[in-house]
């Protein structure tokens, strides 16, 4: 039986990891691998695992564990590795503050406030859900309007159902998965409404979560009003042309629950306090190829840096961050990056934002538009064919030193363009 109670805290560490989701656990394992001795993972929840604990559906770990696991299984496997490796874990503990010398201020019910010193820090705080305010939905402030991830936690961990008849706004994966989840729990799901002309979730989720249960997906449609006194009674939906709703074709839909699945934003309060440099597109800190942020000795990984659709990529990226944090703690850093990546045609962003021409890198990116039969081009040094790309699916590419042998510039444009 896996017990995850906090272990004894030491006053100083080689690496402290903030956040015990898959990113935090991966970073801790990476730090150990690179020789860091004293490693601590801190999580504010009563157990480590992050958002995986509430994602009870399969679809995790095909790359990393070579089999398909549910979220809790993936979390538990990882946690077993963490606990095997003599990594300290403080749950029920919140990281309040990091100062300029990487001292970590920690608050917990059991141990009170502690200030620990650390040679390197890894930020792995995950993400937050966007709420109603982010899209300025009009209407009354009723109960029954909540984010899809919160509903997921209520249903899957706490055993609470949000209502009886639900409308879902946004076709991100969380919304799609909750459409199926609520249906299986006996809640009537009237439909999923998406303002964009294309779905935002993975195709497989549209099949398994909507088609399987005959739940309609209304593209280019959004919620334009919310009605009710105390409790939600109905929403008004309308088709949109671009972002302008056509009120002549609006429709009132009775429901007692509205789930918002309108995206995640990196949780970056700590990163802001530290005055790190940010990428305006990802809303996360800028990172070098070592996953180091703009502040020496502070690394970041997982959804804090950019929103991932697959946890396997989170694991890869965070083990890299952890290894480099471990190397930093031992004073053995690799040479700094010498090439900046510039997002070009149909590329919204690249992470990391800079690379080094002397070693292999995995670069993650997101496209702005769906496209079929495309060519991913790195400046004029390398190109690769890709069958199709979707904004909902992160694209990744291995960049190898041999691609860059003839390249002597300091910035490289990345384009995803149609094949001629």
């Amino acid at each position, binding site marked *: 039986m896996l017990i995850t109670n906090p272990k004894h805290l030491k006053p100083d560490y080689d690496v402290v990891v903030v956040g015990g989701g898959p990113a935090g656990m991966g970073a801790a394992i990476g730090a150990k691998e690179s020789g860091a001795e004293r490693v601590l993972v801190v999580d504010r929840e009563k157990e480590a695992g992050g958002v995986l604990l509430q994602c*009870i559906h399969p679809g995790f770990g095909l790359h990393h564990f070579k089999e*398909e696991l*549910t979220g809790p299984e993936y979390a538990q496997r990882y946690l077993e590795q963490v606990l095997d490796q003599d990594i300290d874990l403080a749950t029920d503990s919140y990281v309040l503050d990091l100062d300029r010398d990487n001292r970590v201020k920690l608050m917990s019910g059991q141990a009170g406030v502690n200030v620990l010193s650390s040679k390197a820090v890894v930020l792995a705080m995950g993400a937050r859900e966007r709420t109603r305010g982010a899209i300025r939905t009009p209407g009354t402030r009723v109960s029954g309007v909540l984010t899809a991830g919160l509903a997921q936690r209520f249903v899957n961990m706490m*055993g609470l159902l949000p209502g009886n008849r639900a409308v879902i706004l946004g076709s991100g994966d969380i919304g799609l998965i909750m459409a199926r989840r609520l249906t299986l729990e006996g809640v009537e799901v009237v439909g999923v409404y998406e303002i964009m002309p294309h779905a935002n979730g993975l195709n497989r989720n549209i*099949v398994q979560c909507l088609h399987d249960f005959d739940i309609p997906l209304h593209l280019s449609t959004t919620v334009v009003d919310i009605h009710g006194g105390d409790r939600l009674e109905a929403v008004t939906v309308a088709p949109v042309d671009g972002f302008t709703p056509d009120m002549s074709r609006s429709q009132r839909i009775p429901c007692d629950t509205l789930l918002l699945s309108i995206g995640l934003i990196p949780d970056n309060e700590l990163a802001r306090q530290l005055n790190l440099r940010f990428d305006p597109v990802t809303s996360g800190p800028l990172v070098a190829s070592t996953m180091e942020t703009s502040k020496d000795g502070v690394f970041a990984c997982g959804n804090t840096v950019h929103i991932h659709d697959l946890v396997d990529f989170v694991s890869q990226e965070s083990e890299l961050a952890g290894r480099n944090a471990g190397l930093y703690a031992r004073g053995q850093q690799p040479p700094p990056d010498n090439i900046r990546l510039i997002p070009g045609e149909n590329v919204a962003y690249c992470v990391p934002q800079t690379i080094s021409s002397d070693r292999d890198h995995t670069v993650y990116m997101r496209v702005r538009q769906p496209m079929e039969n495309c060519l991913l081009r790195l400046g004029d040094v390398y190109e690769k064919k890709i069958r199709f790309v979707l904004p909902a699916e992160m694209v990744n590419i291995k960049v190898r030193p041999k691609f860059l042998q003839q390249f002597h510039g300091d910035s490289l444009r990345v384009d995803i363009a149609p094949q001629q």
Partner: protein
Amino acid sequence: MTTATQQPETTHYLCIGCPMGCRLEVDDIEGEVVEVRGNSCRRGDAYGRQEHVAPKRMVTTTVRVENGRWARLPVKTRDAIPKELMGALCDALHTLTLQAPISMGDVVLGNALDTGVDVVASRDMPVE
């Protein structure tokens, strides 16, 4: 028997085998699958054939727990079951109440609905 003059009927599916979501075309002649196209791997071929004839799904849901760290235990079918049984399985699981502690892999419901498939815990649930 198939003859050269018979035209296959093509149905489109989206493979759910992995996040790639390959677009499959399944050719059927008189109720028999003759070809699957568009798959990037063998699992896609198998999925296309199965989906066309008798679709199956893994089911993940939760079961009520007493004395546990959380009120619900996440569970999954060890294998896919016929798609039309998903609702009935969830109804059957709603009638259960488990006691913590429970270990990952413990059988929560054996041979669910006579499908030959077990429903198992997908995490440890320690006593709180």
